[in-house]
Each structure stands twice: as C-alpha cells, then as structure tokens.
C-alpha cells in the first residue's frame, strides 16, 4: 500500500516529462517559452537587468511612496501617468519581477500577462496571431514578439517612422535613364 503513492508520483512525473522532452528540440532560440510560445528576450536597456544589482534592499532602500524619481530619469511615463507609477507594475519586494493587479508575480519574459490585464482584447488577438508580428514558418515553428518589443511600456504609442523611398514617377525614369534602360 505504501508504494502506491510513490508509483503514482513517478507516473505523474513521467507524464509531465514527456511533453517537455518532445518539445525541447524545437526550441532553438532564447529559451523563453511559456504556453508553448517562443519569444525572444525582453528588450532591456543595456546593463539595466537584473534590477537587483542595485535594488537588493541594501544599496537602495525600499520606498513605496509615489514620487518623482532621482534615478531612471530617461523614462518618460506616458502611459496613464495620472493614475499610474512604477510600483503598479514593478514589484517592490521582488525587483526582478513584475506583478499583476492581484499581486501575483510575473517574470519580464511573460510581461504580456501584465499588459493583458487592461488590454485583454489585444492579448486575445496576439495569442491567435492577429495582433503583433510573427516570423518563421506559416505552417510550423514561429517566433513571436512580446508587447514591449514594439510598444515601449512607459510610452506605448507606436512611434512614427521615416518612410522608405517612393516609387519613381514614370516621367523621371525617362529623364534620368533615357528610356526604358
């Protein structure tokens, strides 16, 4: 009788291991796979991560008061700045993580869960491939991007771009090239 729970546990482990083993050769890129989604690393600024390099509870004391920061001044918050500040998303007790409204911690590699709390329609579209960009194979393995690869989380509006050259007007082809050549 005693052996049965052990055997069951072993079976469970085996069952859990099988899909993990089966999917492992497919992951060639950065190993940030959640829910079977292959994602590249979050686009951290150079040298900014891990946050605990400074925010280890000793060098920088924890201050949960909402205020203007002396550090990180390059960040311009244009994402509901009246009602939001750093610790609404960043976690004060576990600096290398983010947290949801519920307090549940979320790694930076799964930040889409955090975004999806408010932008649920976009998260739903992103999961099925309507919102956001995918590369790779249309029938097989694809690479996704995190929300934050295209939208700076502190200022999420998609930034304007310089357009690439316009097509040549037919009359200009004649002028510059002497006909069809």
């Amino acid at each position, binding site marked *: 009788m005693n052996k049965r729970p052990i055997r069951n546990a072993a079976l469970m482990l085996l069952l859990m291991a099988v899909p993990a083993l089966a999917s492992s050769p497919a992951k060639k890129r950065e190993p940030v796979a959640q829910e079977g989604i292959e994602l590249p690393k979050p686009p951290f600024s150079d040298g900014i991560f891990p946050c605990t390099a400074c925010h280890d509870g000793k060098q920088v004391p924890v201050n949960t008061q909402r205020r203007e920061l002396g550090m990180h001044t390059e960040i311009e918050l244009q994402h509901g700045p009246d009602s939001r500040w750093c610790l609404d998303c960043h976690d004060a007790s576990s600096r290398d993580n983010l947290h949801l409204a519920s307090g549940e911690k979320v790694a930076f590699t799964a930040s889409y869960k955090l975004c999806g709390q408010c932008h649920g329609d976009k998260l739903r579209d992103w999961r099925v491939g*309507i*919102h956001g960009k995918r*590369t*790779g194979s*249309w*029938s097989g393995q694809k690479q996704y991007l995190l929300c934050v690869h295209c939208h700076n989380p502190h200022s999420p509006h998609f930034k*304007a*771009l310089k*357009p690439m050259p316009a097509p040549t007007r037919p009359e200009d082809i004649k002028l510059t090239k002497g006909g069809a050549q």
Partner: protein
Amino acid sequence: MTEQLPMPTPPPSDESGCGTSRRAFLGTAVATVATALTGCGKLSKEEFLQHHFKELSKDEVATIIARLEAEYKEKYHKTVKVGTEGPIPGVIFGYGLDLSRCIGCRRCVHACVKENNQSRSPEIQWIRVLQMDKEDGVNLEHAEQYYNPAEVPQEGHFYMPVQCQQCKKPPCIKVCPVGATWKEKDGIVVVDYNWCIGCRYCMAACPYGARHFNWGEPHLDAADVNPDTHYLGNRPRPKGVVEKCTFCIQRTRGKEQRYTACVEICPTGSRKFGNLLDPKSEIRQVLETKRVFKFKEDLNTQPTFFYFYGV
C-alpha cells in the same frame, strides 16, 4: 505527319545540328529562322523550343532548370538555385492586411524588391502603398502613391498597400492569349517567363495594377541577387516579360514554408499570411473575428487577399 514537327527538347546527342537526324535539323532550322525573324538574338534553340511549363515531363523540367542555373551562374558568378516545388496538398494561401495598423513606411515594398530579384533600374515594385484621406475612406480618387514626408503616418491619413490579390477569378488569366499565366492549386497566380510573349494584356485586365513589365533588360547587380529562387517566382527575368507578386512562392512553398518577405519585415505586424483551409491559421482567425473587406469586390474577381480592421 506529326513526326516532322519540331519537338520541345531534341535529344541531346544531336547537338551537332544539321546532318545526323532530320528532327534535329528541323529544330535548328526553325530556331534559326525564328531568331532571324523575331530579332531575339539571345534566345537559345532549347529555350525557343521549350514547351509550356505545365506540359513538361520531369526530365524536361530538370533539363530546363539545369540550363537556367548554368545561365545564372555565368551571368552573376554565383550559384542560384531554381526551385520547382509544386502546390502543397490541402493548402490554399490567404493574406490579410490590417488597415488600422499600416503606417505606410514602405518597408514591405523594398523587402519585396530585395527578395524577389526585381530590376533595380528602373526599379520594379510589386507593392504599391497608397496614402488616403481618413475623411474619404478607401477612395482611389484621393489616393497618393508618391507621398514622401519626413515621418509616417501623417495626420488625417491612412495607408493601403496594394499588390497582387491572387484572385479566385483572375481577369489577367482570362485575357492571356498564350496561357503563360495561370492559377495554381494553392491559389497563387504565376507567370512562366519563358512562355510570356510580352503583350501586356494581363496588365490591362488587372484592376489592381499588380502586374509589371520589364521594358528593358532588368538591371540586377550580382551582389543583389537572391540565390533562393523558384521557376514560377523570383528567378531573374528576361526583358519583355510581365511579373507580379507570387506570395514569395520560393519561401512559402519551400522546405521551411516560411512567411513572405513582406510579412516578416512589417514593423507594425499589419500583414497576416496562412492557409485558408487551416482553421487555426492567423488568416482564418482574422476572417472569423474581424471586419474584413475585399478590394473592388464589385468586380467579382474574388481576391484571396483581404483587408481588415484589427481594432
């Protein structure tokens, strides 16, 4: 007697031309006369006598591919692979373009040129991005294709890239007098550049301006050649033939079944591509959950290219 008619690929043993066999003699004679009459000095006898692509046997296709690859090797001094992959069973390609996200940056236009070996001078572009007024909606009378501000998107405008719509009832195919363009089983409308006579009827018939003509010898530097090509797609073209978007046939039908170049370059993720027969594909999700329209639907060309609003 049918025996006396010139056949597509004469036996290679009779390369010496006139003399040994009657068929080879006639072949050479016909080719020489035709060359003299049409002024197509560069056309080889084999090329002139090549049959329609769909009528070729496997061996004949292999011979033609070997000939083309040798020609490209000589011209560009690098190995160019010419694929002939056929349609994948159970696949019909569909394309979605999110008009609410496109910002008109033209990254797709130039990625396409690079991928598909278009002539660089004058540059042939398979995608044309139209800038339109938000107030007017999709209205071709208020469309501008030569816009060039410092930054896009511009206030009050939206952008609509137009390329081959891979119609289910393609008017371009109906008018081709020689059958040099046809619709494949996976929905891609292709052109056989070796069969095209350059009459440009298809260009007149296409309501989307999606077909383009090589008025001159295409100018393509060896360094710019994309060596991964397909016979019915992006292999370097000769002068005097029509070309068009093929949903990057060399990628989408290739071994890795990759996305098209325009899908992969788009910085806003406006472009969606997939199998219309797969209910889980992105394009099916778009069709089932978003507001979708077909461009110039009233013409009943039945595009498999869909515009949608992702918001």
